[in-house]
């Protein structure tokens, strides 16, 4: 039984990290229909900038993390305005390639400017671990889980309760009508890129004490986050959160009970199975899918 609960703990920890990436994906997708491949890079930047500022410049955690969030948000918004918006009339797959280009650019710049070593942020909660009936839990993991929950709830509140959030729904539902009632779609989408970059950077901050990070950490995160978003469904706020946690749990149970070598394949097979029966994802809603 201890083993079972230890696997659950591991799965939820790892899954929360995937969920944080997936939540960022969802917001941009909701506003623009774009899958932003650079979402993983935002997570990497949040961790890298904070870690470098703390270890090499001796800056404290709070100012370092604020700088990291601000820089990442600026990168998110600017990359939308300079690279994606000018091509907004192009097909979805063309915009996907632009975001791939942005992710290659960010990875390349990070390696050139911040170096290629892996970076760790010291755990900022203590004690480092605690033990409940033989199950070991990292304190930092609780923070990651709380972070994912908080981000998912805030996203939901933001989309359904705030004026801007309603604007996003309006822009994605009917662009022309949204313009007519005085909503500026460029500002709305730029804001969404900024917020999703912020979600990514915060995710990087809380996760890096566990995962460590380096300039090339973003790709794998983007792929896992993409899987999480697809499994959960991208048209609801709960989708990416549940999708992320499930992928994490599948991997943990795959590693614990099936084969650690094929745990990723195990998780992907379940995902394929789910997509076969519910192509829109677990929480997806067919009608809001963009054509």
């Amino acid at each position, binding site marked *: 039984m201890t083993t079972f609960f230890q696997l659950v703990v591991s799965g939820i920890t790892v899954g929360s990290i995937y969920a944080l990436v997936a939540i960022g994906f969802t917001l941009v997708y909701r506003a623009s229909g774009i899958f932003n491949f650079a979402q993983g890079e935002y997570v990497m930047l949040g961790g890298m900038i904070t870690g470098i500022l703390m270890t090499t410049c001796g800056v404290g955690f709070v100012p370092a993390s604020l700088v990291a969030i601000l820089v990442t948000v600026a990168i998110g918004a600017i990359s939308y305005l300079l690279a994606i918006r000018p091509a907004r009339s192009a097909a979805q797959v063309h915009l*996907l390639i632009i975001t791939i280009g942005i992710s290659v650019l960010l990875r390349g710049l990070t390696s050139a400017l911040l170096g290629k070593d892996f970076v760790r942020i010291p755990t900022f909660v203590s004690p480092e671990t605690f033990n409940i009936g033989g199950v070991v839990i990292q304190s930092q993991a609780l923070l990651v889980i709380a972070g994912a929950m908080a981000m998912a709830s805030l996203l939901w509140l933001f989309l359904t309760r705030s004026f801007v959030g309603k604007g996003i729904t309006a822009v994605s539902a009917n662009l022309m009508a949204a313009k007519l009632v005085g909503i500026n779609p460029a500002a709305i989408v730029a804001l969404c890129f900024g917020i999703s970059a912020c979600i990514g950077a915060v995710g990087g901050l809380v996760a890096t004490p566990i995962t460590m990070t380096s300039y090339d950490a973003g790709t794998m995160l983007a792929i896992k986050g993409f899987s999480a978003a697809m499994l959960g469904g991208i048209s609801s706020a709960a989708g990416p959160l549940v999708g992320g946690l499930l992928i994490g749990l599948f991997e943990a149970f795959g590693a614990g009970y099936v084969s650690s070598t094929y745990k990723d394949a195990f998780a992907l097979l379940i995902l394929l199975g789910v*997509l076969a029966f519910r192509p829109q994802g677990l929480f997806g809603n067919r009608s809001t899918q963009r054509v």
Partner: protein
Amino acid sequence: MLTKALQNPFVSTLAVALIVVALPLVVGSNFHIRLATMVYIFSIVVLGLNLLMGYAGQVSLGHAGFFILGAYSVALGPSQLGLNPWLSMAGGVALTSALAFVIGRPLLRLSGYHLAMATLAFGAIVYVFITNEVDLTGGPDGMQVQRANLSVLGLSHLMSWYWLAGGFLVLSMLILSNLLSSPAGRALRALHDSEVAAGVLGIDVARAKLMAFVISAALAALAGANLALLDGHITPAAGGILRSVELLTMAVVGGLGSLVGSVAGAAFLVLLPQFLTEFHDYEHAILGFLLVVIMVMLPLGIVPSLNAVMRRWLP
């Protein structure tokens, strides 16, 4: 007139064939011949991907999986089954096509990003398998591939594969040109514009998509086998997830819905890194930057965008 001719798939096939024949007369260096060969090899996969994406409108992030299956079939055929490398190549293409046929039906019920996810999962599973079955595949360090070439015709190993890859490329373009001007091809194009409308017109949408999927998988396997035989050594990194992303990028950058665009996209991404080595640490940053700039300046991809420009300026 000129622009119209350039859009004709048979004309572009002829143009590519002329380049393949003329290039060895111009360049002598083995390095340049190798680069050209790699451009041909990647063009073959991208052609298939273009048929699937540009004509049938289905996005795949898993074609590196088919590519690597083709590559390992020429590595494993001779070493495990004692087969002749040429036979292994044919067998690999056939088996990969059969696999695509089997998984194609359920996969293609998905569309858009969901199909991209499902194909990505397929590619990742193939990659994990090849990386971890060390006793069979040699694991991440890869395995040797038995040498096969046209030395009986007095050609060096490299030149053999230059001609073979170039020949396969022209042949693939010819087959696709024929396909696209046949009723099946017109059905595919109708699909891209609107699946619903195509269905109403009596086109078997599922069958048309499946055909494009199987052809693209076969071309990917053929290209993979060519690469493995050219190099004489193959590692799983040749077909990882990043390779799928790269192939997709080649197809889009070159231009969806244009056969010669596939060749242009492959050439762009094979050759560009060779020019960027001067920049050392900033190599990747510049590659990403150029990718963004190209896609913003030429939003339809290199070939269709240039075509549009030419249409405006030429009669």
